[in-house]
């Protein structure tokens, strides 16, 4: 039914045969002349005799003919339902089995996978084939893969659209089982594979699919490479991301991002994979403070759960300070006090050396004091405080400490030390006993070859047992510890070198130190059978989110071996203090490409464009052409005249652009012809309407009471409109007004320099910040860049107080605020202040609405205040129009006196 013509296929190709009828249409259209223009005409009687005289053979114009033929052809082709990029349909005529790999490896190209599924559904819909769906990963509920019922393609579309990649591997063995009972004649199979091998069941699965019908496998295209982040390796100065990839024939570069818990990227490293290789490493070097904030490594631009390696405490590097009592010999190889500590701690911590004060100056988690007896009282106080805040102080005994113990010890020591074994002793060197259950070292294996030959002894006390973290086989404490505040103090009763024991030579030493470091800052890792509840889990795209209801906790001891599954998706588990990461990459050794089954058609995923049904476009174009034809026919008959039609079109277009028109510049000619007041448009309709109404009211008042003849006020935008026509700008300052742009600043500066006056009204005076909070800040913001002279409160003899009326203050809607003008001493601009700044909300006081009333009550009120507000307005207009002319009147008495003489 579907016939492919190149990349365009037709669902109903037989309809194209009607194209043969087009010549008939051409002939029909040519013999039918177009309808004449219709015109009413009173003098038609005179024409009645003339009409037979001349009759030209009227024919449809060729362009109209072409238009109609084209429209007809478009309709025919559109009805034949062409489909662009109609893909190769899978064979068979029965149901289509759509198999989708939705495991973690499907995440990166999920869009292409969905598009391919959609395209397959669209094809099936066109072909009328029902569809069955099988996803290969266990569902989020933990159910094994199940085959959906066979249903029509449109119904299947919703199911497919709801599919999401899941952050665990597919279970193809279970999928094979799900397929076992299914059979349909003429079925075709489309397998949207993720391109990776997932165990031994792959071959059986592919074979089962192939046995159902013609199999098409859509795999990621040849160049696409799968990546997974294996468990990162922690190195002293850096953290190394290990990347496993499928081999590709080209060199690829992979970016690895180091992210914090809040999603910020702190570092990026690149790994280069030469052709054919499957593993690469990218080292990320960060200062420990930053490194400890990392929550995850992620492969750049790869959206899959495998491309994210979550980091927990195991990858944190904590700063550890080392101080030795005998500083000069501390680093002596094999003998020095810090030699073994250095080697044990360096792989997983950041080591620092220095005095106590230097160490405490920076963030530090653990301080190890190896046989130190030189602590001053100040240092002891500082260390005590630091321990209380979460630091861990680890002390090693030695001859010096044994001689001079200090208070920073978990137990009181007896003077001197105890020698076990040796030439003069009956005793054998002591071995270690298994660690007590409540000790931080619980669970560590005790090697048999650790011998302690000398140690310091603790003074027996009631709580000594509780403070003992490790003992020798005879019960003497080897390590004692005490938690103080949020931190802890631990004492090894032996030295940190091999002088008193061979403990530093054993692996246990490293493990014990590791546990102690983990104690710092509240890190008490849960061990044993404690269940770690899921905290945040990754989804199939590698994004962290709240765990689903089907997720269950993992025993702390089992988390190392847990393979991610619906019950345990990769993510963070455990309480805040002891969070553990479960990574998909930790259980993957390498990535193997899927062995494509024999005899299956292979199609790259996401390469072909989605099929597009052209019918709506063609029919739409035909409709548009026919509409045009109708308009042309009307025009030919004189029913539509081009001019009104164009005008109507212009109106329509104009309506579409009303906002643009509204923001257009004001007409300079209109502004220039008459003197008028202006206000600055704030863009807030309410404020602008008050400004306009206010200036209208003031203009009326001024025209009534004075010889001035002002025209209707205008709204202006500094920087957009020419300001030079206006004597006075009223500027209501609103709290959220932004700063002026450069052109606005320039325009206003020019305006003020040429004698214009700007009245800034913060509209808050007399009411504090209550009425227009933030107006002052806005005023500061707005006037930034304006050349505003030094200001002073309006003096009592200012021209403003006498320009027309004699005024003592300048009330507006409010009263009592201060009004500022240019300082009197400035002679610039003929002593006329270019700005007047106040906050009395004058426009509201002046405002007059359509019915001629004042819509805004004055506060405190009264006709007198309103009248004074208007009088201030008159004075202001006079001041703006006449400058300091009225100031000269001050001298009138003197002049009169002079004349009198």
């Amino acid at each position, binding site marked *: 039914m579907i016939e492919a013509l190149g990349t365009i296929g037709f669902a109903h190709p037989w309809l194209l045969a009607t194209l043969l009828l087009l010549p008939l249409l051409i002939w029909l259209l040519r013999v039918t002349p177009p309808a004449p223009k219709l*015109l*009413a005409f009173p*003098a038609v009687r005179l024409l009645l005799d003339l009409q037979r005289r001349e*009759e030209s053979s009227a024919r449809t114009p060729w362009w109209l003919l072409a238009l109609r033929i084209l429209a007809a052809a478009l309709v025919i082709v559109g009805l034949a339902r062409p489909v662009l990029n109609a893909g190769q349909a899978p064979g068979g005529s029965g149901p289509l089995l759509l198999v989708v790999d939705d495991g973690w490896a499907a995440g990166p190209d999920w869009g292409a996978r969905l598009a391919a599924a959609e395209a397959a559904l669209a094809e099936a819909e066109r072909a009328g084939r029902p569809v069955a769906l099988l996803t290969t990963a266990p569902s989020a509920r933990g159910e094994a893969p199940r085959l959906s019922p066979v249903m029509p393609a449109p119904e299947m579309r919703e199911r497919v659209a709801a599919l999401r990649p899941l952050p665990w591997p597919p279970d193809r063995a279970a999928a094979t089982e799900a397929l076992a009972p299914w059979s349909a004649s003429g079925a075709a199979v489309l397998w949207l594979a993720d391109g990776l091998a997932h165990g031994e069941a792959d071959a059986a699965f592919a074979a089962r699919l192939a046995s159902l019908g013609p199999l098409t496998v859509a795999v990621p295209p040849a160049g696409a490479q799968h990546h997974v982040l294996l468990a990162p390796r922690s190195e002293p100065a850096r953290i190394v991301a290990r990347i496993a990839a499928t081999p590709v024939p080209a060199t690829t570069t992979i970016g690895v991002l180091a992210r914090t818990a809040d999603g910020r990227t702190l570092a990026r490293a690149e790994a280069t994979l030469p052709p054919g290789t499957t593993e690469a490493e990218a080292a990320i070097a960060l200062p420990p403070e930053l490194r400890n904030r990392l929550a995850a490594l992620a492969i750049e631009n790869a959206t899959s759960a495998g491309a994210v390696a979550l980091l927990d405490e195991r990858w944190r590097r904590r700063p550890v300070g080392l101080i030795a009592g005998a500083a000069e010999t501390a680093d002596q190889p094999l003998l020095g006090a810090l030699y073994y500590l250095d080697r044990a701690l360096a792989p997983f911590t950041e080591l620092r050396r220095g005095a106590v004060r230097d160490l405490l100056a920076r963030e530090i988690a653990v301080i190890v004091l190896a046989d130190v007896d030189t602590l001053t009282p100040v240092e002891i106080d500082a260390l005590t405080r630091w321990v209380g805040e979460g630091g861990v102080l680890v002390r090693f005994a030695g001859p010096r400490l044994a001689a001079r113990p200090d208070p920073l010890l978990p137990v009181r020591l007896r003077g001197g030390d105890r020698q076990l074994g040796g030439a003069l002793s009956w005793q054998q060197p002591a071995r270690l006993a298994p660690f007590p259950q409540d000790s931080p070292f619980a669970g560590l294996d005790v090697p048999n070859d650790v011998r302690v030959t000398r140690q310091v002894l603790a003074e027996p006390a009631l709580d000594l047992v509780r403070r003992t973290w490790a003992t020798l086989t005879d019960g003497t404490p080897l390590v004692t510890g005490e938690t103080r505040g949020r931190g802890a103090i631990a004492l090894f009763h032996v030295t940190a070198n091999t002088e008193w024991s061979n403990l530093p030579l054993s692996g246990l030493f490293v493990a014990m130190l590791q546990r102690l470091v983990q104690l710092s800052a509240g890190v008490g890792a849960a061990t044993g059978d404690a269940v770690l509840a899921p905290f945040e889990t990754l989804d199939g795209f590698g994004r962290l989110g709240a765990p689903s209801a089907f997720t269950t906790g993992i025993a702390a001891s089992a988390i190392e071996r847990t393979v991610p599954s619906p019950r345990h998706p990769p993510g963070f588990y455990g309480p805040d203090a002891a969070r553990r990461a479960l990574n998909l990459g930790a259980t993957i050794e390498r990535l193997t490409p899927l062995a494509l089954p024999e005899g299956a058609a292979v199609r790259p995923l996401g390469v072909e464009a989605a099929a597009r049904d052209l019918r709506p476009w063609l029919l739409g174009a035909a409709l548009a052409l026919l509409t045009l034809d109708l308009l042309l026919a009307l025009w030919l008959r004189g029913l539509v005249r081009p001019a009104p039609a164009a005008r109507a079109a212009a109106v329509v277009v104009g309506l579409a652009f009303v906002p643009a028109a509204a923001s257009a510049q004001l007409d300079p000619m209109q502004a220039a012809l008459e003197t008028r007041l202006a206000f600055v448009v704030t863009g807030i309709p309410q404020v602008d309407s008050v400004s306009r109404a206010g200036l209208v009211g003031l203009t009326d008042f001024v025209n009534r009471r004075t010889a001035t003849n002002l025209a209707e006020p205008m709204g202006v935008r500094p920087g957009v409109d020419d300001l030079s026509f206006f004597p006075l700008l009223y500027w209501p300052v609103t709290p959220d007004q932004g700063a002026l742009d450069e052109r606005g600043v320039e325009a206003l500066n020019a305006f003020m320099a040429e004698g214009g006056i700007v009245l800034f009204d913060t509209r808050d005076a007399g009411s504090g910040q209550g009425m227009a909070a933030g107006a002052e800040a806005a005023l500061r913001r707005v006037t930034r860049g304006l050349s505003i002279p030094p200001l002073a409160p309006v003096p009592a003899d200012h021209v403003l107080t006498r320009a027309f009326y004699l005024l003592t203050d300048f009330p507006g809607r409010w009263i009592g605020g201060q009004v500022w003008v240019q300082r009197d001493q400035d002679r610039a601009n003929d002593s006329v202040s270019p700005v007047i700044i106040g906050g009395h909300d004058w426009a509201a006081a002046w405002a007059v609405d359509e019915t001629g009333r004042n819509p805004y009550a004055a506060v405190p009120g009264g006709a007198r205040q309103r009248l004074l507000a208007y009088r201030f307005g008159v004075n202001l207009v006079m001041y703006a129009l006449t400058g300091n002319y009225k100031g000269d009147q001050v001298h009138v008495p003197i002049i009169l006196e002079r004349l009198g003489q």
Partner: protein
Amino acid sequence: MSEGAPGHPAAAARRAEQLAARLPPLLVAAERVAATVAQGVHGRRRVGQGDSFWQFRQFLAGDPVQRIDWRQSAKGDRTFVRETEWEAAQSVWLWRDASAGMRWRSDRRLPEKAERAELLTLALASLLLRGGERVALLGAGMRPVSGRSMIELFAEAVARRGDPGALSGLPPAANLPRYGRVVLIGDFLSPLPDVQQAVARLAQIPVTGHLLQVLDPAEAALPFRGRIRFEGLRREGAALIGKVEGIRGDYQAKLAAQQDGLRAIAAAAGWSFAVHITDHPPETALMGLYLALAPDRAGRGRAA
């Protein structure tokens, strides 16, 4: 409808008065005044109702004593009666074509023919009323009125256009008094015999009259192009012209023939005939009517 809207009779009257204000009041030249008893300004050179002195005559038996002019009688022995000249007003019947054919214009910038005809009618009425003459709208069932204030009444009568679909473009037969004046304003595109009949009907009463043909410029020039189907407004039928520009000359010739026929009809009845195109100012047409109606200083009572 508000007072200032163009269609309102008062507004139409104002506009017409504005137009008429540029001319002096019109006193109709009337050798013979319409045979009515209405008092007017036309002295009839005989005794009758009027203001101006006509003659003294001797008191005859039967005259009312009150009519004796004692001042004149005191000069002699005989008693005299004072008689005034009979002063009558001329009545002018105005008619404008209100048929559907007049409600047309070729361009929205032009007035409709009917609009222009009404304006001229009203302006003429205004002039006549100011001159003290009596005016009536022919075919409106209206008695002649006089007095300047009557222009409003007249405007209302004009505004009552009657049936907008009226087809006849000719004045109705009306029972007019003898020696009246009529002014007929219309497009007179009806067949000439019909016009002849209508004019003759009036002329035999007898009344004298004036024909003013109001035409749209498009009717005068036929400026269209291309293939057009012309449809009449008075149900004359339709004419499909394949190429309008080709018959323009013929059309204009036919129009000229129509106008010649009209002029001949008017001349035969002793009437005058004029043409007015709506894109010309109405003042010209009004002036023409004024001159046709007013007493001619040089040759009083000029016909046509």
